[in-house]
């Protein structure tokens, strides 16, 4: 990296050092990122809303102070929010037309914590409608494209956040992960992406998909940044009853790079039919790297993990069918212009406002909760979940971490799976069990297949994010994959690039 890089390509850690040395200012960084957004958005469409004015105002507030002693951890760091995370006064559509025009009057807990930590909030990123999807093609506002190949999807549902961080349209971003929605796009876009333990990060202000599975987590261009961001957003929140009281350890201090003697279980069931051989190769090679660093790898079997997908597609839609009931044209968002009675108001508003995948999942979930079917579907799925949870717990007693691929393939082509929901659902086959178990999982870049990034998944014990991050950090230190940047995200033109637009 001899040549001067754009500030848009710097990590948060690098920006903090530049600020401290007086070699760059938050305003300059914000402008670089906004320029990048202006240059690439016509291609990528990672954002649904960019607030240049607010971003520059926030940035200016930290000029001269960001690198100083006592400045908060994210002072002057440009950051994007997935559009299902509320920020006061900004649109929050969660990728759905049914929330057209809705601007929440309040900040999500994570948003408030980011503001306190000094982050420059850039805007809201595109996602699959209500986070239902693995490609961001289900967005009601058009798909996001993969910075590594604009013909391909960025993954999903947090595709906008992953693409933005990969392309330098944000230094950091938040996403949400219900069945893989942080890790899969992380893998597809070649960035570090962490789904924390269920309860580690407050869900207050996250537009709910499946309440018992949803978890907010960070996207970053290296593990250090991910640890930094997690440290800001993690911790008990009295506004979320399901947030955990466990103390938040200093994650940055856990990044020693030391993995000697770490016991890693390679999940046998994650290497079966459907996994692209090249992806399997990259992931096995990654395990080899960790072994080379002194970790002890062995195979472990999670025999019930194969039932995770069907159980998930009962539990998640069941919760979603109830969570999405409020979008009915009464208080906010889209309301049909053609209602002559209450029933029509509900039916038409929802018919017009929801996309096909949302309707599919509402029907699935409604059916699963119906009287007479509840025991056979919902209750049984919950039992499967308990079994899977126990299996993970037991495996994680023998091993410090579990290892496997994030997704069966690298990024697929736009349109490739959209007509076949089941093929799309299979994209999350290695990530969903982790959500059901409630434990943390990270995707860290581990190589390329045909020029497309591939992620390695490391899974830890509940509230064992420090161990997960440290192993990912050790791997990252030993490999160059995270330093590769997509060609699309080349430094802006000498004239500074196009002006940023909102």
């Amino acid at each position, binding site marked *: 990296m001899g040549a001067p890089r754009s500030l848009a390509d710097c990590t948060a850690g690098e920006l903090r050092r530049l600020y401290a040395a007086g070699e760059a200012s938050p305003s300059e960084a914000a402008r670089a990122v906004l320029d990048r957004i202006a240059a690439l958005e016509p291609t990528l469409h990672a954002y649904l809303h960019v607030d240049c004015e607010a971003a520059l105002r926030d940035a200016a507030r930290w000029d001269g102070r960001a690198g100083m002693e006592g400045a908060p951890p994210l002072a002057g760091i440009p950051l994007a929010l997935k559009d299902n995370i509320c920020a006061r006064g900004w649109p929050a559509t969660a990728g759905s037309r049914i929330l057209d025009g809705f601007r929440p009057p309040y900040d999500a807990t994570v948003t408030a914590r980011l503001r306190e930590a000094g982050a420059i909030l850039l805007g809201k990123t595109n996602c699959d409608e209500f986070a239902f999807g693995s490609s961001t093609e289900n967005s009601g506002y058009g798909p996001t494209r993969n910075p590594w190949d604009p013909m391909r999807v960025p993954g999903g549902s947090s595709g906008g956040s992953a693409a933005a961080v990969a392309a330098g349209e944000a230094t950091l971003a938040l996403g949400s992960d219900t069945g893989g929605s942080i890790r899969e796009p992380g893998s597809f876009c070649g960035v570090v992406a962490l789904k924390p333990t269920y309860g580690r990060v407050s869900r207050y202000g996250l537009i709910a998909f499946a309440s018992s599975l949803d978890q907010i987590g960070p996207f970053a261009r290296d593990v250090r940044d991910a640890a930094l961001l997690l440290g800001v957003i993690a911790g008990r929140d009295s506004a979320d009853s*399901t947030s955990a009281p466990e103390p938040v350890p200093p994650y940055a201090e856990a990044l020693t790079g030391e993995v000697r003697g770490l016991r890693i279980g390679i999940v046998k069931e994650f290497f079966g039919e459907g996994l692209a051989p090249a992806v399997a190769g990259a992931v096995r090679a990654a395990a080899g790297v960790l072994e080379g660093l002194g970790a002890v790898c062995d195979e472990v079997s999670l025999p019930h993990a194969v039932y995770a997908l069907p159980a998930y597609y009962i539990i998640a839609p069941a919760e979603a069918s109830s969570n999405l009931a*409020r979008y009915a044209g009464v208080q906010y968002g889209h309301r049909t212009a053609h209602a002559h009675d209450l029933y029509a108001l509900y039916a038409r508003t929802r018919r017009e406002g929801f996309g096909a995948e949302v309707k599919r999942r509402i029907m699935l979930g409604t059916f699963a909760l119906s009287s007479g079917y509840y025991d056979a579907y*919902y209750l049984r799925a919950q039992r499967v979940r308990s079994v899977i949870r126990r299996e993970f717990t037991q495996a994680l007693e023998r091993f410090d971490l579990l290892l496997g691929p994030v997704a069966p393939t690298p990024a697929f082509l736009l349109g490739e799976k959209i007509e076949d929901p089941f093929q799309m659902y299979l994209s999350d086959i290695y990530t969903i069990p982790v959500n059901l178990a409630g434990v943390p999982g990270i995707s860290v870049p581990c190589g390329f297949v045909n020029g497309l990034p591939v992620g390695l998944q490391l899974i830890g014990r509940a509230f064992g994010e420090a161990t997960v991050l440290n192993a990912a950090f050790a791997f990252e230190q030993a490999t160059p994959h995270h330093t590769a940047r997509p060609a699309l995200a080349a430094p802006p033109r000498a004239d500074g690039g196009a002006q940023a637009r909102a």
Partner: protein
Amino acid sequence: MTLETVIGLEVHVQLETASKMFCGCAVEFGAAPNSRTCPVCLGLPGSLPVLNRRAVELGLRTAVVLGCRVHSESEFHRKNYYYPDLPKNYQISQYQYAGHPPLATGGRFLLEDGDAPHTVGIRRVHLEEDTGKLLHAEGRSLVDYNRSGTPLMEVVTEPDLRSPEEARLFLAQLRAVLQYAGVTTGRMEEGTLRCDANLSLRAPGGPHGTRTEVKNMNSLRSVERALRFEEARQREQLARGEAVVQETRHWDEQRGVTFSSREKEEAQDYRYFPEPDLVPLVVDDAWVAQIRTGLPELPDAKRRRYAEAFALPEHEARLLTATRPMAEFFEATVRGFDQPKIVANWLVGDVAAYLNTAGQEIEEARITPAALAEMLGLLDRGTLSGRLAKEVLEEMLRTGRTAAEIVKDRGLAQISDEAALTEMVDGVIAEHPGPVGDVRAGKDRAVAFLVGQVMKRSRGRANPEVVNRLLRERLGAPVQVQIDPKDPR
């Protein structure tokens, strides 16, 4: 064959908390529409519920008072249905099914019914949130979410009640206990206590008949009336050889009938499932014990205390403790006028009679304890005669004005000034030579007639004691009759 009436009640009680069930918004009756709302009780996207600990405590108090088994772990559920007054289109409640108990189950309530007290089984006590309110006007519908998320508790009885009268009695006594326990204000008119009833008929000891559910009863009286109507309706239907249809029926207070709500009786599928936004509610023995020791004085104990400490007859003590507001009114009045027996006499006498006629509860009355105490003070000092006190009290209850104001405005203060009274006495003596002659002839009864004439002349304000004395002095009759100015007559 005589059919037996079987009644079970579902009592919905608004818990007396400062804030709502799942957010910090104030619970307030009558605030400007939608002014007591936040993202949580509006069900805005991303908002999450947090359980109100105080509401749980009040639920536990109820469970303890009703002798229920408190479950160490209970869950909340979502009851899914669409209606504009329900912002999330699901209600957070506690549903009961195998392995998922509500807050408390299996209690008993000792119903005091004359000489035959008996127990009424309590099936369950659970917590839930209230809905908002729909307002319809000029072809438009508006929603006020101030009530949305207000803490509610449902108490469900076993079908152990055998008559509409008994149902009313039970509800009144349950309400009193809940009021005393500080659980609820229990005002049916304001809707802080609501009641649905299930009623069926059966051959004594036989299997249960088909029941109907009666809703929309807004007072104790209407509960009894509605159930009496429903009982008769079912009886006639069965007598005609027709079957009772299982349905929900609404009580029409004006017409005095129940009518079918014509809701589709195919059971609505609420798709209950555990609320994933809340963690299970864990109640340990220590918490229950703490609730038990912290219970306020309940009606039974208070009644015994009144009877002993104030030497009140049993029926007066019972009336004064029938509702918490009455007992509080009594105690507050005694704080201002320290003669409990007199306060009790007036409260169970004139005050109760007025409220009864006006159809009011003591808490709705326009009189305050301080005002009643002031009036009794005027009476005690002789400023008011017993007869005038009754008049003044009536006006106080009607207008909410104080005794002092009324006395001043109407010039009602008792006249004890001898110069003024002597003038009136002389006038009466001059106008009634006949009776005056009778008195002089030793007919003492005629004195009473002359006193009455002076009272009439003074429009009741003359101090009868002084008048009596003056008349006797003037006419040379022996002074012998004493009139107690404190006697309200």
